[in-house]
């Protein structure tokens, strides 16, 4: 389905979607962009939020179950209750195409058998409305180097393209269509000249991408030979081993599960899945005290190998969508493109 929507009607569309919970990028008091709930004053902008919409599909804290102990006379019973995510229809507007593509990568991990019900319920209930980047929102965008583009469609249910006074609305799934049908009167059929314009806009924004990693596939091959290289020690010298690069990454998805006690008398608690990261020392700590990834060099290596070698081997896709966040936000300037270029050219 291909339609157009006058820009001035966008708030109308949002208003019509009364049975959906709605998020879109908003600027907070401190001037940062975040995915926040719609508040009646909703405009779409091509911005990169600090945290990607992964926070909606794969929240930092997910309660899996609740447990409590009770005692009657001498008998103790432990009650365990499964907790599922709320089945709320949700829309995220203005998703960057790379972020939607990251959701498509998360699908590989969480939605293939055995299916992760917590992720899947949220994913099923969420409609992602991508907005083609015109222009790329960050100096460090490099989606085009990792088989993506500023107008990629993977993972989105609808892709919007800004044509000046209107949006070109391309619906990609049934979920997307439902969203359009909920406000039918606002849309017009797309015309051939709109289509032409979309093409031009897309080509133009591709040209505006400033960063490039040449030969990403070759990097994958090369990485296979570099596991034991002292290269990683050198590259990781300045790494702080913080969680920034992975927590803000739209495709990183490692987690930890803990039982958290709320009360002890009587015992009451919850089992929670929380984000975790390969960059933390205790991520790979065995209960024996042995840590197979004992230093930051091996952790930096893991981050890059997971994204550019292992994932490619298993799914034939890069696990990096080129959003550039980890480059922009690394406090010590570790630049994934530069490191991978060095890998590619290593020993040449």
């Amino acid at each position, binding site marked *: 389905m291909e339609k157009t929507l006058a820009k001035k009607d966008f708030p109308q569309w949002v208003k019509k979607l009364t049975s959906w919970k709605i998020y879109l990028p908003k600027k907070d008091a401190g001037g940062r962009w975040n995915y926040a709930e719609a508040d009646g004053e909703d405009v779409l902008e091509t911005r990169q939020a600090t945290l990607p919409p992964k926070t909606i599909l794969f929240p930092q804290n997910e309660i899996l179950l609740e447990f409590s102990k009770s005692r009657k006379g001498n008998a103790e019973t432990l009650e365990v209750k499964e907790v599922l995510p709320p089945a709320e229809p949700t829309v995220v507007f203005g998703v960057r195409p790379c972020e939607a593509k990251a959701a498509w990568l998360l699908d590989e991990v969480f939605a293939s058998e055995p299916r992760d019900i917590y992720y899947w319920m949220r994913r099923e209930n969420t409609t992602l409305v991508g907005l083609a980047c015109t222009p790329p929102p960050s100096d460090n965008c490099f989606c085009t180097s990792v088989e993506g583009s500023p107008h990629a469609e993977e993972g989105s249910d609808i892709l919007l393209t800004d044509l000046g006074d209107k949006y070109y609305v391309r619906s990609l799934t049934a979920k997307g269509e439902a969203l359009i049908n909920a406000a039918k009167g606002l849309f017009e059929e797309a015309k051939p000249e709109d289509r032409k314009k979309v093409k031009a806009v897309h080509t133009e924004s591709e040209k505006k991408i400033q960063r490039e990693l040449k030969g990403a596939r070759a990097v994958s091959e090369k990485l296979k030979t570099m596991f034991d290289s002292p290269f990683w020690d050198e590259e990781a010298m300045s790494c*702080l081993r913080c969680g920034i690069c992975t927590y*803000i990454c739209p495709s990183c998805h490692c987690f930890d599960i803990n039982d958290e006690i709320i009360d002890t008398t009587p015992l009451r608690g919850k089992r*929670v899945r929380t984000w975790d990261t390969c960059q933390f020392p205790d991520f790979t*700590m065995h209960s024996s005290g042995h840590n197979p990834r004992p230093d930051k060099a091996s952790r930096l290596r893991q981050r890059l190998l997971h994204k550019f070698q292992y994932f490619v081997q298993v799914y034939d896709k890069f696990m990096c969508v080129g959003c550039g966040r980890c*480059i922009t*936000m690394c406090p*010590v*300037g570790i630049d994934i493109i530069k490191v991978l270029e060095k890998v590619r050219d290593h020993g040449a």
Partner: protein
Amino acid sequence: MAKIDTLKEEARKLLQDGKVKYIIGYGAGSNGWPAAPLFIKQPEDVDKLIWDPTCIHNLVRFLVDEKRRKGKEKPPDKRPVGIFVKGCDSRAIVVLLQEKFIERGDVYILGISCEKAGVVDDAKLAKKLAGKKVITIEVDDENRFVLTTAGGKIEVPVEELLAERCLECRANFPVIYDVLSGEKTKRAVDKPFGSVEKIESLPVEERWAFWKEQIDKCIRCYACRSACPMCYCDECVVDSIQLAVSADTTADEKAGRIKWIQRSAAPSENMIYHLVRAIHLGGRCIDCGECERVCPLDIPLRLLNKKLEKEAKELFDYEVGFDPDLPALISSFRDDDPQDFIR
């Protein structure tokens, strides 16, 4: 602006003569920020060193890594490490010496004076540049930052772009060093705790509202901890393993370990983490501002630490990071320490 040519020559000599293991300095950064930490082992690489107002990082933090590395070397290379420090950073070295975490001989300190300027604040700079990319930043004779962009030069009085901590800095040149570049000109600071006083003056519920909103944002990436030269504990209270595990540790012992702070990034747990972090830095934080700079959510962590720096000064007349021979704040006391709050 201090020139580091003399320091570069010194660095080259040190490496040529094998007097230092390596040198920690600043080099060209990535696409995010002009400067980044640089580690130099070969004398010919010395020319990669830079010094400008974007050399914001406190490199002393890497001495913690070095200590761990040395611990694993067989036999350990006991030569000192050369390190570039600004005034604030040098105070971190003083604290590490005070706490005997390092010895004076472990470091060869290449000090640089910020003179009348300091380092720039990333957010303020981004605002000023409004999308333009900065190529170089310098300080001119009239104490203005000169920003060179592809579209030309922009001149701004330093006060407009200086990092908050620089505006409250009481050590704008190194307090300890082996060689120094730049003048020891003291920059006048009228309100060294002005930012803290602003929060203190709020009524209690507003203070709570302020901190709650800030701390709720925390995603517990622990960058604030990782960037801090004083957060050198091998095992932090927030890590999920705080139990020395041996072959004899039973499963029950492992399961029954105390969890002071839950893993969920929930408001209460975030708050306890930040209280612990702040109190552990009481009398130790030297206000290099790294925790606040690295925080991806812009949580004003300096204001927490700075509060305790202020109390140390006002309650105990204790100045952090100036005297390596002074006993640490909380491992010392005076008979007449205030106790009017005790019943």
